[in-house]
């Protein structure tokens, strides 16, 4: 029995080949698989069915929270906490509060967006098995990788390797843990 590995990785020359391979792998029934590319590829997301994610909802919530907090803060301070006559304006001069409310909305939404992104991607993650593959450095330049992970129920080292070879990659390599 070979040592446990993270998975098997195939390297391709161009996006089209990768997308093709990805489709094939999914049809073959693999689910625990991921692709690595130097730039976002629309079709790849289709191929791997990655379209849904919760980020927009999170951001919406973040925005609403921020806005409400912003307005409440101003209302509380000027009407409840220290009511004082400023320039003969009413204590609750709502038109003046719009701007800060708006800014707080944006701020909170933006923060949620960024931290949400990190969260959903499980970043930061400076160490990742894929980095063990020497040629993987090219994933950030001009190569396209498809990786089938060993945790996939259908994963069986030699057959999976053979399957990957059948997709005519530049080469197939093991991804050690």
């Amino acid at each position, binding site marked *: 029995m070979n040592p446990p590995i993270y998975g098997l990785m195939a390297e391709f020359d161009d996006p089209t080949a990768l997308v093709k391979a990805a489709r094939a792998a999914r049809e073959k029934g693999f689910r625990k698989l991921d692709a690595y590319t130097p730039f976002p590829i629309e079709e790849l997301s289709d191929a791997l069915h990655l379209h849904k994610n919760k980020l927009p909802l999170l951001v919406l919530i973040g925005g609403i929270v921020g806005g409400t907090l912003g307005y409440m803060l101003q209302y509380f301070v000027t009407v409840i906490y220290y009511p004082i006559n400023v*320039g*003969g304006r009413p204590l609750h001069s709502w038109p003046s509060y719009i701007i800060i409310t708006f800014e707080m909305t944006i701020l909170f939404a933006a923060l949620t967006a960024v931290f949400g992104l990190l969260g959903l991607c499980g970043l930061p993650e400076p160490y990742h098995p894929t980095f063990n593959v020497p040629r993987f450095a090219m994933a950030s330049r001009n190569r396209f990788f498809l990786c089938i992970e060993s945790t996939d129920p259908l994963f069986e080292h030699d057959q999976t390797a053979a399957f990957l070879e059948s997709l005519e990659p530049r080469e197939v390599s093991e991804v050690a843990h």
Partner: protein
Amino acid sequence: MSDPQKNIDPAAVRSALWARLEGARGRDYWRSLDELAATPEFQDLLEREFPRQAVGWSEDEDPVAGRRNFLKLMGASLALAGMTACTRQPDEHIMPYVRQPENLVPGRPLFFATATTLNGFANGVLVESHEGRPTKIEGNPGHPASLGAADAMSQAAVLQLYDPDRSQALAFNGEIRSWGVFTGALRDTLAQQKAKNGAGIRILTETVTSPTIASQLRTIQQSFPASKWHQWEPAGPHSARAAAQQSFGQPLNTYYDFTEANVVVSLDSDFLNSGHASLRYARQFARRRRMAEHHDTMNRLYVVEPMPTPTGTKADHRLPLRASDVEEFAWALAISLGLAEGPKTGENNDIYKWLGPIARDLQNNKGAGVVVAGEHQPPIVHSIAALMNEKLGNVGKTVFYTDPVEANPVDQLASLQDLVKDLDAGAVELLIILGGNPVFNAPVELGLGSRLKKAKLRVRLGLYDDETSAACQWQVPETHFLETWGDARAFDGTVTIQQPLIQPLYGGRSALQVLQSFTEQPEKSPYDIVKGYWSSQHTGSDFEAWWRKAVHDGLVAGSALPAKTAAVRGEALSARAGGKKLGGKLEVVFRPDPTIYDGRFANNGWLQEVPKPVTKLTWDNAVMLSPATAHRLGVQKGDMLKLTYEGRTLQAPVFIQPGHVNGSATLHLGYGRTHGGRAANGMGFNPFGLRTAKALWQDTGMDAEKVSGNHEFADTQNFHNLETPDRRHIIHKADLADFHKNAEAPHEGAETPPKGLTMYPEWKYEGHAWGMTIDLNSCTGCGACVVACQAENNIAVVGKDQVRRGRHMNWLRVDSYYQGDANDPAIYNQPVPCMQCENAPCELVCPVQATTHSSEGLNDMVYNRCVGTRYCSNNCPYKVRRFNFFLFSDFDTPSLKLARNPDVSVRSRGVMEKCTYCVQRINGAKIDAEKQDRPLHDGEIQTACQATCPSEAIVFGDINDKNSRVSKLKANERNYSLLADLNTRPRTTYLATLRNPNPEIEA
């Protein structure tokens, strides 16, 4: 503030205070922050929060190195308060009294009555004292010359008292000596003199009205029969004295009463702002222009003068005439009145154009008119005026004569020349100069500076180690009048006994003491001398009670001189000179400076920095020219002129003053000091350099030529001609007749948005609602209110360069606007304090709520919350906010810290400040009233500016109280808000000004 006239024994309190202040030089008073300022911890804090250099001035700001330190001296202290807010404060200490004087409650001010003097004439004042520190001077309502008002100079006396530049040590040729040595030297000389009956003794004083000093001098005269007493006062009423002799054959004192005067003709007299009773006159005059009811009438004022004065700005008809033409005008007027023979015309048509109407006006108001001759006009003008008043039956109604107020009304010029003669003859062995500064201000041709040296022993008693001191061997530091006992007479002879409020800060002697040393008991204290004199005068029982009352009231009841009747002698009116010809040259006019007078106040930061009436100049004098004359000479404001008169020359910068008469140049005296102190030296130029006995006040025949160079003036306002029509509606004005026809006349075209016109709900002001009205019809623009505000609110002095940069700190300013022809415009004064807007634009934009609205409608400014964005100032349409661009307030000079009002925070660097309606006074009064569980009554609270205003133009009060004076005035038809169309809803409003022109002349 509490009742100004507590009935207590001042002496007792004071002795206790002295005990406290002994040695401590007043640093250890209970609110011991001043003392704190000296502790190392505090210094550290200072270092930490204000690196030393922070207090300095970058070369950008102040090229004149020397002045820098002084200016920060002149400010206020304790300012770090604001800073230390967020820091742990270092330990402070409290030094309680050892034996607390009765009547003295720490934290509550006491008020003492005394008097300031100018040219020897007294002006009654009340001095506010905090734990023995005089901090504020206000008028004494009981005193005839003051009636409760105080002029700028009197109020600034406080700063003079604490001036660190005062002469602080007895010196012989500049070396410090002990008093023993001095009195020794003096005694020896006197012993020698005794032999020759004092033939070598000369005493030179200013004008003396003090009965005590007079009696001392008389005694000296007896023991030293051959000694002589000379008097010299550069800006005194010389010609009035001469005129009295000429007209009546006897020395007489003239004063006026304007309450009954319907028609006033001023022959170059600034009676509303200068002279010995100007405060009284201003009040009487203003009351005749109050217009409480719509159909009230007003008096009518004709002014003939070369240079616009506050009086000129109030004129219904102002005739710019060269000073030397006023005599001709007087003649012509007399002729028109049929009091003299001669032609009613001449070359200069200006002189004659209004004679008929004016004469008729005077005729129609027999006994209800007055002709006022200017102090600076030659005797003949006074005589003619006297004649007119007499023939018009004004004497006894609006004009009064009494025996002279001066102890010895001599011709001072002659007196001085006499002294010079003796000096040249080498007859002077002991010359004693009491006060004054003759070397600086005597007629230039006398060359007193060098001549004095001919006297063997020269002793100088003076507040400052000045030009005269430099020419004397002994410089004896003089005690300030707030430090010693004394007495003086007012314009009508009323006597005030001056009482000290503080132990002499720098030691020193008073004139009384110096003169006393001529007698058997040389060491007698001023208190004993004065009290002694009066007890000797006192007839009737219980002198002590009389004395107590006199001292407490600030005047000796019934000491006013009785009115005399006198008739102008036929020979009084000498030959008529006729209009003066210029012959292509200029007329030179010398006048005392409106704020620093003859130079005696030159080292007083408050007086230097209060914008001078009309010109708005600070820290400077100038050659005042009319636009036309300036054009003729081809000069602009700031260009240098070389003036040549009687072979003497002087270089001075030009200031173009609209309304100044053509062909004449006015020079204000007092500047160009060389030994005046750090604020005085190097400021302006010295007209005394041209002033000869022949031309004490004016003369023709001065040459002026443009020379290279340019001078930067620090004036706080540029000349602004109102657009005609004044579309900004800054000054609401109308002619009396039109106003009578239509009450809305003054507000023609101005729009005030109706109350409802706002999207906001109304703020309700229950309880008090403070408001103010300023009657432009009364305001003379004298600037007394500005100094009052400065004293009351610890406002810093910033110095000439900063003023030039528009960084002056005065919370209250007096704007002047011109209308019409730049050579003969109408001039309007407008005092501008904070408007306390109900819809305050400044509050809205302050990011930290440092300025907000109080429940009583005050626009509060919290210095310690201010971070200094200056947005509020930008958004203030009235520009009444002042910013501390540097650390303007003082942190170092102990003496100046004593001058502070403990009820007002001293502002530090980087914060905004502004008028608060003297909120410290409001709260003080409210607290007192609440403690006694009674409502505040109207007039109980007086803002500093209101309290001091000679013409009662400023009224402050509760506008929720429908019966308060202020509410009534706000209901007056003349009431209007400045820039009302901005809908800021000012609490400070103005009463439109009215002119009462003679219909004949208008037509």
